[in-house]
């Protein structure tokens, strides 16, 4: 790690103020992505602004048919939250499958969404559930938020405060983990709300999380795994590495989508 100055913020405003003063500063949430990156000297912020003690950034509440999760809420708290498990059980299950227990005890939803790792799980849930990412400046719909690998709509100095997830009538997340890192090699979140169906895929594309419209269309006609027969994802633009070719990833997108639909139907 390179040297940096450490700053503790007490409020979002203070954090934003510190960020505004130093273009080279980075927010520290759970640190489960930022610190490994800094340890490998791949990131070298001159200052680190710790959000750990900022009041009111962690917590889960239900507002009607929407679950609102504070940015600093840890993965383990989402996984075990009675509110989430009741309103959107698929989201709790997703959180329970991120990394390992110790990672879940520190990693946060805000950090995960802000980072938009192409293999992260939360972005798929945000996109499929049509979440709204609330920052200190504005509200950003998920469809506009994720803009390709590690790229988001966040402006410089913008801080995620909370994320609002409207509940779905049926939802499920099916993850095929990378055997080594256990991040998603392919993760598919399907959500059905009324006649609308959204299918979001993470891990597979070199453009990051995306909605698979062909599958959505097929599932809108009939929400059943059988509807996906003959629908296949294209290998173009899929990530290819030693763990899986583009073709294999495209194939897995189909398999995981079917499995997610089956699970959403409670079968």
């Amino acid at each position: 790690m390179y040297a940096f100055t450490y700053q503790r913020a007490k409020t979002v405003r203070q954090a934003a103020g510190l960020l505004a003063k130093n273009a080279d500063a980075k927010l520290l949430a759970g640190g489960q992505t930022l610190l490994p990156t800094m340890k490998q000297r791949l990131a070298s912020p001159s200052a680190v602004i710790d959000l750990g003690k900022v009041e009111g950034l962690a917590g889960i509440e239900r507002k009607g048919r929407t679950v609102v999760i504070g940015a600093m809420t840890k993965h383990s708290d989402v996984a075990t939250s009675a509110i989430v498990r009741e309103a959107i059980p698929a989201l709790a299950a997703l959180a329970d499958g991120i990394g390992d227990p110790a990672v879940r005890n520190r990693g946060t939803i805000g950090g995960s969404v802000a980072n938009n790792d192409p293999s992260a799980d939360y972005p798929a849930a945000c996109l499929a559930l049509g979440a709204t990412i609330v920052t200190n400046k504005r509200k950003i719909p998920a469809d506009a938020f994720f803009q390709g690998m590690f790229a988001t709509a966040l402006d410089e100095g913008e801080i995620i405060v909370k994320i609002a997830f409207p509940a779905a009538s049926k939802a499920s997340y099916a993850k095929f983990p990378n055997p080594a890192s256990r991040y998603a090699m392919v993760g598919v979140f399907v959500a059905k709300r009324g006649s609308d169906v959204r299918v979001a895929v993470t891990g597979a594309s070199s453009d990051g999380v995306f909605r698979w419209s062909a599958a959505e269309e097929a599932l809108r006609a009939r929400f059943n795994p059988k509807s996906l027969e003959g629908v296949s994802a294209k290998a173009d633009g899929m990530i290819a590495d030693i763990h899986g070719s583009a073709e294999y990833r495209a194939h897995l997108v189909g398999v995981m989508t079917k499995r997610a639909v089956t699970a959403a139907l409670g079968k």
Partner: protein
Amino acid sequence: MSNTGIGAPVRRKEDFRFITGQGRYTDDIERPGQTHAYFLRSPHAHATIKKLDVSAALATPGVVGVLTGDDLAKDGVGGLICGWMIHSKDGSPMKAGAHPALAQGKVRYVGDHVAVVIAETLAIAKDAAEKIAVDYETLAPVVDMNAATGKGAAVIHDVAPDNRVYDWHLGDKTATDAAFAKAKHVTKLDLVNNRLVPNPMETRAAIGEYDAGNDAFTLYTTSQNPHVARLVLSAFIGIAPEHKLRVIAPDVGGGFGSKIFIYAEETVCVWAAKKVGRPVKWTSDRTEAFLSDAHGRDHLTHAELALDDKGKMLAMRVHTKANLGAYLSTFSSCVPTYLYAPLLSGQYDIPAIYCEVEGIYTNTAPVDAYRGAGRPEATFVVERLVEVAAREIGQDPAAFRRKNFIRKFPHQTPVIMAYDVGDYAASLDKALDLIDYKGLGRRKRDSARKGKLRGLGFSAYIEACGIAPSAAVGSLGAGVGLWESAEVRGNPVGTVEVLTGSHSHGQGHETTFAQLVSDRLGISIDQVAIVHGDTDKVQFGMGTYGSRSGAVGMSAIAKALDKVIAKGKKVAAYALEASEGDIEFKDGRFSVAGTDKSLAFGEVALQAYIAHKFSGQELEPGLKEGAFYDPTNFTFPSGVHVCEVEIDPETGVTKIDRWVAVDDFGVVINPMIVEGQVHGGIAQGVGQALLEGAHYDASGQLVTASYMDYCMPRADDLPSFRVDHTTTPCPSNPLGIKGCGEAGAIAAPPAVINAITDALGHEDVAMPATPQAVWRAAQKAARLAAAE
């Protein structure tokens, strides 16, 4: 059997310090005035160094020294060595390129050592290393083994213009070719033995220290064999004479072979300690470990098996290309030769075998012994060939193996080894029973109903352990003898210290060795201390690898214990006023035959030291005996492992559903510890078969340089194992021990691949059989089935 003697599942004595966080590993040690070393490593696979400017680094506040290959040369420090001479077919010696601890003009793999920065803190050392200016001129990287020996490949070492270290062979080519000529059936296979990274959880570390007052060095290091490290560092590298160099290997967090070797880093730390006048500490991070620990395996093999019309094996022919990396590591040359080809007979009666091995340089990390070392590679060849042959001629793979098993012992194979004892059919029968072989058909149908594919695979392995008779290995090119030493010190109060040349890094020697003493001397294991891992305490030893600590290390202790008992009888004779011939020793007491006069071991020990009852002219006081034990043969542990898998053909995910291991390790000192060794070995073997593979890209960059990409077996990748045994005591050592440390790693890979190919209808899959690889094979199998 006493409750702490031979055969008892005694709980480990060493555990208390580990479970309470009081283990003492090398990185836990802090020496006064300690500085920290960081190695600048080559980012290129192959390059010449045009210019190396360390001045900016040296000027960094907090930097104590920056040293390069030039400094090594100026001080006359020798290069790292390879201690086993292999001769090619034509009689020429292997071509060993120079291996300086810090590069001298050229770098040969990504991670090669360019310079070392020594500073007050590691962070300062790293910061300063970034200021070293290196002007590289890159050369074409040689990564692929097949291309390495071809025309136009860049030359890695001038001594080996075709990048061939040796072109070696073993066996009778004429007899083998003749047998193939009259064969009814020939099975042919091309096999890849995937490259692995050993990955003990404790990374390597070293602290070098120099005592100017006595002109003496101390090296704390993560070593499996501190005495060999001292020998090499003093006799070959020339750091200091042996009596001026102390090597200490404290608690070591796993080795699996990778901590046998003498590496650049510890060499540099101990040498640099004198140059900077302060202790120098280096601890590898995991990425450095991936880049610079010696890797394992990495063979390309073509193998053929000839059968007669009844399915009896006639001959085997094997050609192997072995990747040895960019430099010859300490024992690398013998691994794909003498630790490999002599095992190609497996458990089978094969009249003729011929094996050729090309050792090849590439611009990758050095490759050396990793758990099993050569024997897993041989077993993979044998057990894949045998399985495929049985399938090709339509015989049940178990029956086919049984028919070809060696049944008469001793058995001389056509490839050096003389097997002393074994009962291979007994292990197979037990394994078939435990796996419920009869129920396999039903289980396959159950799986098919769920859309899954089920398969079962055998591996009937043999290994040569207890390395090794010194004269025999000497005649094959070994640079050292492979005996072991022990010293048993009876103290005046009857407690015992055993000084052993073996080294424990997870094997539990503090317990098993104490069990042997407890068994022989009739004292509690709490009265026994095992001392190892310090060249100042233990006179000499060859260390722990090749499953040798039981068969060789403990035999040395047994021999020393015999001498202690003999001496004790003499002392007891004086003390009990009887003749020495009438003294019996049993259950910890020396007694006069036919009387009730006796003394406990501790009482005799006291008599030995106070020496009041005998004259020093007739008998020397004291109770301390040493022994060197040189084995008369290798030992031959064997067994049958059976793996049953269930495959999800849609994703290619392979789940291991059942594992049965039936091993014959001869006499077992502590079954709990032995089973633990088997579990760990299987896990590493399954890792090789399903998960692990070191991968270099075409430019020679290691793609799998962290756990993000190198897939380590985790708890949820593995099942619980059913471990059982049969026993034929080893006749060649006094304890009947064969050794158990590597069996699982040797047996497992072919068992897994045989199971997967069984499930897929015989479609071949290379290791590691990742989900993608299995999915592809399943697709192909389905297409072939549809076409039929």
